[in-house]
């Protein structure tokens, strides 16, 4: 058999790189930094005068600790190696502001989302009303090809985006970037709506309808098919493969380990003593995810997904209640957010530093420009790709402009980000725990409600991301390879519970924000096609050509 080097090289290279880097990281012996924690655990186990029974009981704990150290180390090593490239600080914008650097990934997102917003004529604003009408089902036609209604597609995409990024990530953003990060997150959310519109329109436009009626789409399809149409097939194929590899990584990281890790912190804030048995939570989550993705028990996953809009509502209402309770402080908080966005008092890197934090956490949460949501939106029943793109732009609005902003306002108004008593949580990137303290302090007992909400958010996000990852895995290795993916996915559910928050967050950033590189590059090249489609659709919509349901 002849193997075409040009066509197959990227396939082999991409997959090789992925596995070699993972293998290299896992093969590393644990480094010195993890030793102190282990040593203390060992000492305790050895020096304590205990009966042999007690000693035996201690043993698994010590072994577990040592294993936890190793896992965390592996994450750290991987992050160091891969992070060097993707977060390479390219630009020092102001020379007088020492230390102000914009990581490549963030620059990419800012420029990309801004470009889409301007190029599509502020579709995020002018398309909003129509988007709401479509989502409400006014234009649904059950005869159109696809698997779900517009509303269901948005629910599925939201269950992937609304997760710990909104609760933990935002708290981290405000504590690192100060109150000003809130403003930049909102800006990122608004611009992200346009990016989401373009990528999800493309997801529909280049989806594949299988002989069994199933529809498959996403960034890997539009990158490869769309760019082939433009005569640069090999580049499209290469971008699609890079995207798929990173999306698989993202589904293990931000869509999985990060969710387990941060939700555990929120649960831990309500159950004392759990910190010594983090792996138990990991195990429970692994089983719960496993019975769905391997066991095929769909009812649990369906319930979790359907409950997401309700949980969003509860969360937003609780945040609003806290804001009302502190009504008199709202003007001051807004003043602080505005002034700190442009001239932060305590943030290294000034306004640019805050902007970087805001954009990073917003993109991590709403996935705009990342390309993942196009996989879910491709499933919607419609004959007009633009229509689903419009529905998709509501995602970043709900996720970031509404939910993330709520978290941020609560953190700012309660002053949790600057509370000296909570600084350890800030230093350890334990964002969900921070939010839990902030909300629990205002509404007594709410930390328990939040713990439940957080577990559900984490769970539905993991289920949805496992779909994204599995589609990309199938794109790389064929539909028959799903089982191997599912097993690795479950391993990461468990690993997420025992690694440190900082390393898991960094790992998530690397993979998820990394997806924006191939995606935004390809989407920019394909944007003229979307613009033409939009122009045509909008003219027909304005002319009243589309029948409406009552």
């Amino acid at each position, binding site marked *: 058999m002849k193997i*075409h080097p040009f066509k197959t090289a990227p396939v082999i290279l991409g997959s090789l790189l992925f596995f070699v880097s993972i293998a290299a990281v896992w093969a590393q012996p644990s480094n010195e930094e993890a030793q102190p924690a282990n040593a203390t655990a060992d000492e305790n186990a050895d020096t304590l005068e205990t009966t042999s029974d007690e000693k035996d009981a201690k043993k698994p704990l010590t072994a577990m600790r040592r294993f936890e150290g190793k896992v965390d180390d592996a994450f750290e090593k991987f992050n160091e190696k891969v992070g060097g490239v993707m977060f390479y600080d390219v630009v020092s914008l102001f020379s007088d502001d020492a230390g102000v650097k914009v990581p490549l990934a963030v620059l990419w997102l800012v420029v990309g989302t801004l470009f889409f917003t301007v190029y599509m004529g502020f579709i995020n604003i002018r398309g909003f009303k129509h988007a709401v009408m479509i989502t409400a089902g006014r234009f649904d036609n059950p005869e159109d090809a696809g698997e779900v209604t517009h509303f269901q597609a948005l629910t599925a995409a939201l269950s992937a985006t609304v997760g710990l990024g909104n609760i933990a990530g935002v708290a981290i953003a405000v504590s690192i970037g100060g109150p000003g990060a809130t403003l930049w997150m909102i800006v990122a959310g608004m611009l992200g709506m346009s990016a989401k519109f373009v990528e999800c329109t493309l997801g529909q436009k280049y989806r594949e309808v299988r002989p069994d009626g199933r529809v498959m789409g996403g960034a890997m399809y539009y990158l490869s098919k769309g760019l082939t149409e433009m005569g640069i097939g090999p580049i499209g194929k290469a971008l699609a493969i890079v995207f798929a590899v990173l999306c698989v990584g993202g589904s293990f990281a931000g869509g999985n380990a990060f969710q387990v890790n941060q939700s555990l912190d929120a649960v831990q804030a309500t159950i004392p003593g759990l910190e010594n048995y983090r792996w138990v939570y990991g195990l429970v989550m692994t089983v719960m995810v496993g019975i769905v993705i391997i066991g095929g028990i769909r009812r649990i996953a369906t319930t979790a997904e359907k409950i997401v809009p309700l949980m969003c509502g509860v969360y937003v209402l609780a945040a609003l209640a806290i804001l009302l309770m502190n009504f008199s402080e709202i003007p001051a908080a807004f003043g602080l957010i505005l002034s700190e966005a442009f001239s932060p008092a305590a943030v290294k890197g000034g306004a640019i530093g805050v902007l970087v934090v805001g954009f990073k956490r917003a993109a991590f949460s709403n996935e705009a420009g990342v390309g993942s949501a196009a996989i879910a939106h491709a*499933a919607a029943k419609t004959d007009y790709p633009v229509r689903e793109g419009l529905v998709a732009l509501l995602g970043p609005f709900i996720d970031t402009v509404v939910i993330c902003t709520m978290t941020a306002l609560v953190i700012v108004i309660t002053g949790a980000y600057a509370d000296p008593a909570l600084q350890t949580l800030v230093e350890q990137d334990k964002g969900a725990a921070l939010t839990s303290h902030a909300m629990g302090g205002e509404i007594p007992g709410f930390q328990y409600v939040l713990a439940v909400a957080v577990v559900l958010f984490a769970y539905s996000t993991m289920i949805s991301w496992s779909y994204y990852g599995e589609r990309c895995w199938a794109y790389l290795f*064929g539909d028959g390879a799903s089982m191997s993916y599912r097993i690795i996915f479950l391993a990461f559910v468990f690993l997420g519970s025992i690694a440190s928050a900082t390393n898991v967050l960094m790992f998530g950033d690397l993979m998820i924000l990394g997806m924006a590189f191939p995606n935004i590059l390809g989407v920019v090249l394909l944007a003229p096609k979307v613009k033409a489609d939009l122009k045509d659709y909008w003219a027909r919509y304005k002319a009243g050509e589309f029948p409406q349901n009552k």
Partner: protein
Amino acid sequence: MSWLPKKKVVVPVDFSGESEHSIAVALELVSDSSELHLVHVLFPLDSVSPGVLLGDVTDEKRAEAVRESFDKLLQGLNVTGANVEVLFGNPGLEVAEYAAKIGADLIAIPSHGYHGVARLVLGSVAERVIRHAECSVLVLRRSDAE
């Protein structure tokens, strides 16, 4: 294997251009199109996609859609009377098992699947069929094989 017309020929169909080619070849081997047994194997339904969790995707509907795809394909090829079967599971194993069940005397299959990295390997489906089949297997070279 004798070169006389076959009684029952199983043709796995993935609805790619190659399927049309293999159906055409198989037609030359049988005396009547009613001796053709066209098979499409579907992977079991996942439990995480929006269509399954929130929409109305079911195995029955998928099988129905495949039968419609068969109708369209056969109409296009001007073939009538061929048997059509939709199976679930691992494509290679299911095809071999089905051939044994109906007592087929030949399976005609394209050499390559075309999905993912699997395309680098001589079609894993063809390979499985060869390994598990109880009858002869005719492996057809893909016209666009590299």
